[in-house]
C-alpha cells in the first residue's frame, strides 16, 4: 500500500515536473526577427559581410531559433532614427541592429522600448549599456598577416594604403599592415592616403595612382578600386570581404571580417533575456572578436598563389597560426597613420 502510494506520488511528481518543463519550453521563443539599418549598402564589404554571416548563423539555428531579418537601404542621422522607431513601433522585431555609428539615435529610443535589444557597430558610438549592445570589428590581425606577405613581396620597399576615413577601426588596420610588413622587412617605407569618404572610386583611383607614382609597388586598398593596380601591373590587397573577383589578376588576398561570433554573442544575450529572464546588460566598452575567435581571417590566394612564393605563403600561415595560438601578438595601434 505504502509502495503504491509512493509510486503514485512519484508518478504525479514526474508528470507535474514534465508538464512544468514542457510549459517552460513552450514559452521559449522560437523565432528571432532582426531589423537591420545599413550604412553603406548591401554591396559594400562592411554591410555585405554582415548578411553573409547572418546566413551562416541562420543555418546553425542557435538555441533552435528561426532567424529572419529585414534590412534598409543606407540611412543616417534622423532618417535612421525614424526607421528604428518604425521598426520598434511595429512590434515585429526583437533586435534592431544598426550597422554603424547610431548610438545617438538609439539613445532616444532604448528606454521607450526596453523589451527590444538595440545593437550599434564600430567606432564613433557611445556605450549606453542596458538594452544597447556595442559590437566592434577589428581586422587588424588579418591586415598584419597581409602586411607580412607585402613586406616580403615588395621590391621597392614602399607600400601604399588607401583608406576611407582616419577612424579608430581603420587606423588599426593600416598600422597593423605596416607593422606586419616591417616584421619581415625593416626597410619598409609607408604611403598613406584617405579618400575622406566611405565610397568614391574616382578619388580612390587618384590616390592609388599617386601612391604608385611615389614608388609604392604594393597597395592595400581599403577603398576597393583596383583599376590603377591593374594598369600599373602591381599587386593589391583588399579589405573586409573577399574581393578577389573584382580583380583576379591583382588582388593577392583580402583581410576578411566574419560577424558570426558577434552575432552568436548577441543572440546568446538576447536568449538569456527572453528565455532566462536576465536583464539586458549591454557593454559600455568595446568588445571584439579576432582571428582566434573566428571574427577575422584572410582570403585564399586563388590563382594568385603562383605569384606568392612558397616561403611567403609559409610566413603568412605561420603568422596566422601564431595569432591563433597567442604566440604572435599584434599590437593594437589606432593612432592616425601618415606617409613616411
Amino acid at each position, binding site marked *: 500500500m505504502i509502495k503504491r502510494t509512493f509510486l503514485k506520488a512519484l508518478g504525479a511528481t514526474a508528470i507535474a515536473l514534465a508538464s512544468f518543463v514542457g510549459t517552460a519550453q513552450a514559452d521559449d521563443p522560437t523565432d528571432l526577427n532582426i531589423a537591420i539599418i545599413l550604412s553603406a549598402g548591401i554591396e559594400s564589404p562592411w554591410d555585405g559581410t554582415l548578411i553573409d554571416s547572418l546566413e551562416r548563423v541562420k543555418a546553425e539555428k542557435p538555441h533552435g531559433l528561426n532567424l529572419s531579418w529585414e534590412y534598409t537601404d543606407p540611412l543616417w542621422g534622423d532618417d535612421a532614427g525614424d526607421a528604428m522607431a518604425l521598426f520598434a513601433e511595429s512590434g515585429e522585431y526583437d533586435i534592431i541592429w544598426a550597422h554603424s555609428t547610431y548610438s545617438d539615435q538609439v539613445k532616444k529610443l532604448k528606454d521607450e522600448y526596453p523589451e527590444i535589444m538595440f545593437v550599434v557597430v564600430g567606432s564613433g558610438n557611445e556605450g549606453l549599456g542596458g538594452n544597447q549592445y556595442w559590437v566592434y570589428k577589428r581586422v587588424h590581425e588579418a591586415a598584419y598577416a597581409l602586411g607580412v606577405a607585402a613586406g616580403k613581396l615588395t621590391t621597392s620597399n614602399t607600400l601604399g594604403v588607401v583608406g576611407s576615413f582616419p577612424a579608430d577601426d581603420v587606423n588599426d588596420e593600416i598600422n597593423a599592415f605596416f607593422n606586419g610588413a616591417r616584421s619581415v622587412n625593416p626597410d619598409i617605407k609607408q604611403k598613406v592616403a584617405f579618400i575622406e569618404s566611405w565610397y568614391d572610386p574616382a578619388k580612390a583611383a587618384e590616390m592609388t*595612382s*599617386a601612391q604608385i*607614382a611615389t614608388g609604392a609597388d604594393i597597395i592595400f586598398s581599403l577603398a576597393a578600386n583596383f*583599376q590603377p593596380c591593374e594598369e600599373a601591373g602591381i599587386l593589391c590587397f583588399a579589405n573586409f570581404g573577399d574581393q578577389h573577383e*573584382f580583380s583576379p589578376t591583382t588582388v593577392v588576398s583580402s583581410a576578411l571580417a566574419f560577424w558570426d561570433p558577434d552575432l552568436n554573442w548577441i543572440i546568446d544575450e538576447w536568449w538569456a533575456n527572453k528565455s532566462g529572464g536576465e536583464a539586458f546588460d549591454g557593454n559600455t566598452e568595446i568588445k571584439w572578436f579576432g582571428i582566434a575567435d573566428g571574427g577575422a581571417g584572410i582570403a585564399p590566394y586563388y590563382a594568385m598563389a603562383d605569384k606568392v612564393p612558397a616561403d611567403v605563403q609559409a610566413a603568412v600561415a605561420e603568422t596566422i597560426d601564431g595569432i591563433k595560438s597567442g604566440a604572435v601578438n599584434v599590437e593594437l595601434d589606432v593612432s592616425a597613420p601618415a*606617409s613616411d
Partner: protein
Amino acid sequence: MSELFSEAILISILAGTVRIMTPILFAAIGELVTQRAGIWNMGVEGTMLMGAFAAYIVASSTGSVWLAVWAAMASGALMGLLTAFMTATMRVDHFISGLGINLLAGGLTLYWFRIYIKGRPQPTFDGFDSVAIPGLSAIPWLGEILFTQRLLTYLAFAMVPVIWFLLYRTRWGLELRCLGENPKALDIKGINIVRRQYLAVMIGSVMTGLGGGFLMLGFSDRFLADITAGRGWLAVVAIIAGNWMPRGVLAAVLVFALLESVATHVQVLSLNVPHQIFLALPYLASILLLMGLRRKTNQPVKLGIPYFR
C-alpha cells in the same frame, strides 16, 4: 616638400589633373551651351549620375565600353528631354526642375542598382585603357601628361574648341546665345524658341551623361550609389567661375582639378600641410572668382527666366 617637385610627382600631379578634368569638362562645356540658351539646368549632378549608371549596366552586362558610352549619352539625352520638357514646355522654375531631376536620378539609380545586383556578387567590368598617341606620347613630360590618357579625355578637350566655334563662329551659335539674352527678338523673327531650347538642353545633357560615363569607364570598375560625389555641381560652379566663356570654363575646370590632384599628392607625400585645405580650395577659389566677376559678368541676361510670349 622637395619631394612634391620631383619629376615623377609633378608628372603624376599633372596627369592626374587631366584625368580629373575629363568628366567635369564634359559636363561644364556641354552645360555652357544649355545656359547660353537661357536654361539654368541645375540637374547636372543627377544627369551625370544617370550617365554613370547606364554606362555601368551596359558595360557590366555586355562587356563593351563603347556600347556603354552610347548608353551614357542616351541616358543623358533622356534626362535632357525631361529637363527641356519641364523648363521649355512647362516653364517650371529651372531650379525646382533641376532639383527634381537630381532627386529622381538619385532614387532611380539606387532602386535599379539594388534590383540589378540582388542575389549575386556585384558585376564589374574592364573600363577604358590609356591610349598612348604614337610619337606625341614620347615627348618628355608632355607625353605622359597629355598624350597617355584615355580616348574620352582627348574627346573632352577637343569639345572645347568645337563648342567655342559653334557658339561664336556660326549663325546657329549666335541665335543660341540670343536665346539667353533676348529670346523675344528671335521669336519675332519666327524662330521656334522652344525647339532651340530643347536642342541646347539635349546637347548639354548628352555631354553630361558622357561625363558620367567616363567617371564609370575611366575611374571605376563598379557602380556605387551617388558615385558622382558632387562633380556635377562642380561643373555648374565652373561655368559661373568661367564667366560663361569656353576658355574661362576650361580654366576653371583646370584649376579645380589641379587643386584636387595636388591635394591627393600632398596627402600621399605627407607634407606638413593639411590636405583638407586643398579639398576646400576649389570651392573657395570659385567664390573668390564670383566676387571678382560681379562687375563684368557674361551671365546671359535671361538665364533661368522662363520665356513667355
